[in-house]
């Protein structure tokens, strides 16, 4: 926040971090980082990587957090940092440039609360798939079935289900359901 910004931005509805109240700044940062954590978790699918990446976002954002910015600006900055960190994560893990991955990472900033975001998107996405593809992904990911259990449920073999799972994941990735 600079002295040149409009008064409405400084003292209106925007929530301003009052320096040097570091504890308050930390509280606001943690509240926003909770959303960032949910955003990252929904894209890496495991706690260990989500914690590691959230920590990276927090550490990178510290200078900005200390500048007394409005909470809304902090959120924007944290999500921008999260997208960059996620891009770097996948780029490193897959050995591809971030440009090659851009289409696959679903990094759009969520417009709805985390309680709705992700779950609704996945439901929309599954609904677009053919019956067999939707069923295999639902059983595997939503119901936690093992491959063997899915094969039994769908009256098929483990080998065939494995191939179907791969094809279903590829098909789901191509759907690009808006977030």
């Amino acid at each position, binding site marked *: 926040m*600079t002295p040149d910004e409009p008064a409405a931005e400084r003292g209106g509805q925007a929530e301003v971090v009052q320096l040097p109240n570091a504890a308050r700044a930390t509280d606001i940062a943690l509240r926003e980082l*909770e959303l960032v954590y949910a955003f990252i978790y929904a894209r890496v699918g495991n706690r260990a990587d989500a914690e590691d990446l959230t920590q990276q976002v927090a550490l990178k954002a510290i200078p900005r957090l200390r500048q007394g910015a409005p909470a809304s600006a902090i959120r924007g900055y944290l999500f921008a940092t999260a997208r960059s960190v996620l891009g770097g994560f996948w780029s490193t893990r897959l050995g591809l440039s971030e440009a090659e991955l851009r289409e696959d990472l679903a990094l759009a900033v969520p417009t709805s609360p*985390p309680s709705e975001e992700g779950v609704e998107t996945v439901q929309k996405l599954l609904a677009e798939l053919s019956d067999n593809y939707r069923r295999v992904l639902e059983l595997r990911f939503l119901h936690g079935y093992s491959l063997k259990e899915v094969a039994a449920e769908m009256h098929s073999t483990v080998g065939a289900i494995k191939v179907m799972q791969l094809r279903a994941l590829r098909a789901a990735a191509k759907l690009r359901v808006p977030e």
Partner: protein
Amino acid sequence: MNGKPENRVEKIVTDLLRGRRLKLRGGDADEKEAITMAARLAGTRQGPQRMRPEFRKRLARELEAAPDAGWMTRRAALVAGLGLAAGAAGGGFLSRTLEPHPPARPVAAIEPLSARWIDVGGIDEFDQGEGRRVTAGGVGAFVFRKGDAVSAVSSICSHLPCELSWKSGDGHLLCSCHPARFTADGKAIGSYGLTALNPVHVRVTAAGRVEVLGTE
């Protein structure tokens, strides 16, 4: 991708559904769409996630400790053309001189309770300036030779409990779990403000043998 792609993707899916880290390898890029989609499905299967209390506390500690990590003075900020930002911050957190990296915090050397000196090789077996991974009982270390002297740091990252590796071309230690890097003397590289690596006691005997203080 090694083997059949459906087998490799199934292994990744199984790991994700068991809550394990994503461990990818060469060739997995061929199935990037399927893998990133599997991670998304695994990430949403239990609904939105919240941070664990312990992790939240750790983040809070790191955020609150950050002002000690070193920022720039108002004068330095003005010199750098950041006068407006410095003015807005009121200087409350801008109390240190401008530094490219946060100053390394002193960390204690590893002092095993049941310590003993363990031979890890002759001094001639260590290349000048190159890090060499050695094990001294329960202590893992990277030993560096400079002339006839040696130094050593822990082989475990100070951030995540993962093994480091020595990148000869770049001249730094790299964490296998995340993008953290350290110099040969254990200082963290970059702006994350990570703690330095623990030094490890090491010596060269009169017979030219390198010994590390390890465990029984």
